[in-house]
C-alpha cells in the first residue's frame, strides 16, 4: 500500500520537499542545541518547561481525533463516519509521533533515553505516559493500516482486528488522563493542582482534534478526488461545539474556585496570564487572543445557521484550534511556573532556535501526515472508482 505515497502530482512532491526542508533546518538547530545544551532555549531554573512541553501537551489532545470518529462508527454504527475513520486514525499517528519528538528535544540527556526502559519506574507518571502514548501509536497504526488494506482489497476487515478497535477506544482517554496527571499530581504548583485537570484535557482534546480534522477534510475534498462527505464534516462540527462549550465551562469553574475562594496562590497564575503580575505580562496578549477566539468560535458553532455554513464552520474550527493551541501550548505550562515557588515572577519567552526546532517538529509531523493521507485518499478514491464501474 505504501507505493501509493511514491507517485503523485508535482504539487504533492513540492509540498513534501518544502516540509522536508523545514524539518531539516529544525534538525540542524537541534544539533546545535544538542551541542550547547538546553540553554539555547529561553528556559531557566524558574520556568523549566516551556514551548516544547507545551506543544507536547497540546498534541496529545489532537491525537484524540481518532477516537472521536472511531467511537461513533464502531460503537454506535454511525455509518457517515465510515469514510473518515481512517483520516482520524492517520491524524492521530503523526500527532503522537510529534508528542514523542517534543519530549525528545526537551531532554537534557537524550542519549540516555533508554534509561526509561532500563530502569522502569511505575510510580512516575512519565513512565505511564510513555506506555499509553506508545500503545496508542501502535493501536492506530495497526487498526488504520489493517482496515485500509482490507478496503483496498475490497474485502471485510479481518475479524481479529475488532478487539484492537475496541481497545483503541478505551485506550484513547488514557493518553489525556495520564498526561494531565503529569501536572495535576504536583504539590506546590497551584495552577496545576486541580482535580478537573484530566477532564479539561479531555474536553480540549475532543474539540481540538476534531477541529483540525474538519479543516483537513475540507482540504482533502478540495485537492484530491476523495470526498469525506458533507454530513461527516457537519457531525464533527457538532462534536467540536459541545466539547468547546465544555472547555469554556471548565475554565469558568477554575476561575470561580480561584477567585471566590480568594486564595492568593490560586489567583496569581491567572492574574499573571490575563492581567500581568508585578509589572510582568508577556503572555497577556496571547491569553486574550485565546479567550476571544474561544468565544468567537462558540458564537459561530452554537448558532446552527453559521455552523451549517461550511465556510463559517472552517473559520470556527481554525479559531478553536488556535485558541486551544495558545491555551495548552503556552498558558497551561508557563502558568504553572509563574510565579515560581518563591512567589516571584521570572518570565519566559522562547528563543529563535527553540522556535525553529519547534517548527521543525511540526513540519516532520505534517510530512508524515501528508504521506499517510496520500495513501488513504488514493486507496479510497480507487475503491470508489471501481465501485462506479
Amino acid at each position: 500500500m505504501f507505493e501509493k505515497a511514491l507517485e503523485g502530482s508535482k504539487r504533492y512532491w513540492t509540498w513534501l520537499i518544502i516540509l522536508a526542508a523545514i524539518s531539516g533546518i529544525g534538525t540542524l538547530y537541534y544539533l546545535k542545541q544538542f551541542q550547547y545544551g538546553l540553554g539555547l532555549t529561553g528556559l531557566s531554573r524558574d520556568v523549566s518547561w516551556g514551548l516544547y512541553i507545551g506543544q507536547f501537551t497540546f498534541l496529545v489532545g489532537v491525537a484524540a481525533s481518532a477516537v472521536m470518529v472511531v467511537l461513533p462508527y464502531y460503537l454506535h454504527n454511525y455509518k457517515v463516519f465510515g469514510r473518515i475513520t481512517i483520516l482520524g486514525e492517520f491524524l492521530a499517528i503523526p500527532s503522537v509521533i510529534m508528542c514523542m519528538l517534543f519530549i525528545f528535544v526537551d531532554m537534557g540527556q537524550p542519549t540516555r533515553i533508554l534509561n526509561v526502559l532500563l530502569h522502569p519506574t511505575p510510580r512516575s507518571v512519565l513512565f505511564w505516559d510513555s506506555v499509553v502514548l506508545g500503545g496508542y501509536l501502535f493501536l492506530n497504526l495497526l487498526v488504520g493500516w489493517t482496515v485500509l488494506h482490507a478496503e483496498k482489497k475490497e474485502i471485510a476487515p479481518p475479524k481479529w482486528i475488532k478487539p484492537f478497535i475496541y481497545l483503541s477506544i478505551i485506550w484513547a482517554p488514557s493518553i489525556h488522563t495520564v498526561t494531565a496527571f503529569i501536572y495535576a499530581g504536583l504539590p506546590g504548583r497551584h495552577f496545576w493542582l486541580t482535580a478537573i485537570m484530566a477532564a479539561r484535557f479531555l474536553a480540549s482534546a475532543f474539540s481540538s482534534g476534531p477541529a483540525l480534522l474538519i479543516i483537513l477534510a475540507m482540504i482533502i475534498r478540495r485537492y484530491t478526488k476523495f470526498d469525506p462527505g458533507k454530513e461527516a464534516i457537519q457531525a464533527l462540527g457538532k462534536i467540536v461545539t459541545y466539547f468547546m462549550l465544555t472547555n469554556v465551562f471548565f475554565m469558568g469553574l477554575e476561575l470561580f474556585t480561584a477567585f471566590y475562594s480568594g486564595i492568593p496562590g490560586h489567583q496569581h497564575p491567572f492574574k499573571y496570564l490575563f492581567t500581568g503580575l508585578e509589572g510582568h505580562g508577556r503572555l497577556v496578549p496571547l491569553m486574550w487572543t485565546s479567550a476571544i477566539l474561544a468565544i468567537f468560535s462558540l458564537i459561530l458553532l452554537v448558532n446552527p445557521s453559521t455552523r451549517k455554513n461550511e465556510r463559517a464552520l472552517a473559520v470556527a474550527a481554525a479559531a478553536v484550534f488556535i485558541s486551544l493551541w495558545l491555551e495548552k501550548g503556552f498558558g497551561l505550562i508557563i502558568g504553572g511556573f509563574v510565579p515560581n515557588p518563591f512567589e516571584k515572577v521570572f518570565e519566559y519567552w522562547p528563543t529563535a532556535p527553540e522556535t525553529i526546532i519547534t517548527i521543525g517538529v511540526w513540519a516532520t509531523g505534517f510530512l508524515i501526515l501528508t504521506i499517510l493521507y496520500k495513501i488513504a485518499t488514493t486507496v479510497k478514491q480507487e475503491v470508489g472508482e471501481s465501485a462506479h464501474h
Partner: protein
Amino acid sequence: MKMNRRDFLKLTGTGTILGLAGLGLFERVTEEAIAAQFSKDVKALNARRWAMIVDLRKFKTEEDYKRIINACHSVHNVPDFGNPKDEIKWLWTDTYEHSFPGQEHEFMPEWLEKMSIPLLCNHCANPPCVRVCPVKATFKSPDGITQQDYHRCIGCRFCMAACPFGARSFNWRDPRPFIKKTNNEFPTRTKGVVEKCNFCTERLAKGLKPACVEESNGALIFGDLMDPDSEVRQVLRKEFTIRRKAELGTQPSVFYIIGGSENV
C-alpha cells in the same frame, strides 16, 4: 519454497526482533559478578534521617551567610554563571516573604522583613521529586538524604516541576568554564542533568559534617532526627521551629528558628 515480499518482510522483521531480544538477554546473563564486598568507612557518620536546624538568631552579619554558601559551592564545584537564566545553586538566601510565602503580613517588624534566610534542599521524608523521576535518578538513601544520580539523570526536569521549594537547578550548558576554583576531589556536573544539595553525603561517609554546618559557628545544627538524644532533637524539644510549606505534606527535614531582632 516461494515467498512473496510481504511474507519475506514479516519473517525478517520477526527474526530481527527476536535476535535483538536474545542479545539483550545474553548481555544480562553474562554480566559477571565480582567476588568482593563493599562496606562503609568505620569513621562514617550514620543516621536514619539526617536533619538540619537553621538558627537564624545566630546569623549576625552578611559574612555569616557568605561563609556557608561559599563553603558549599566551592566544595561541590557549583558554577557561577552570573545570570538568573542559567543559575545553579545549592545553598542560597531569600527574604522571609519569599521563603515562607503566605506567612508574611504587612505589619511585620522591620528586622523580619529584611532578614535573609538560608535555603537549600529540604531532604523531605515524602519527596515529590523522587516520586516523579522516571528513572530513579533521584532517590532516597537509607539515611534520609534525597540523592541525585548524575550518571542516570535523563534531564527531563519533572523533578524541578515537582519540587515546591525551588531547590533544584538544571545544567542548561556546560558548567565547567564557570567554576572559579575547582575542587579536584569532587566531580563537576555535565550539561543536561539536574543537581542540588546532597547534604554532603561524601563528607558524612568520611566522618565529616556538612561543609556549611562546619562553617556556620553553630548557626546550623545537624543530626539524626530519629535519634532522641541527637542535638537536633534536643533543640527541637526546646525551641519553636517552623518548616517551609509543611502543609504540602512533603515532610521537610530542614527546620528554622526565626529570631534575631536583637541583631538589628
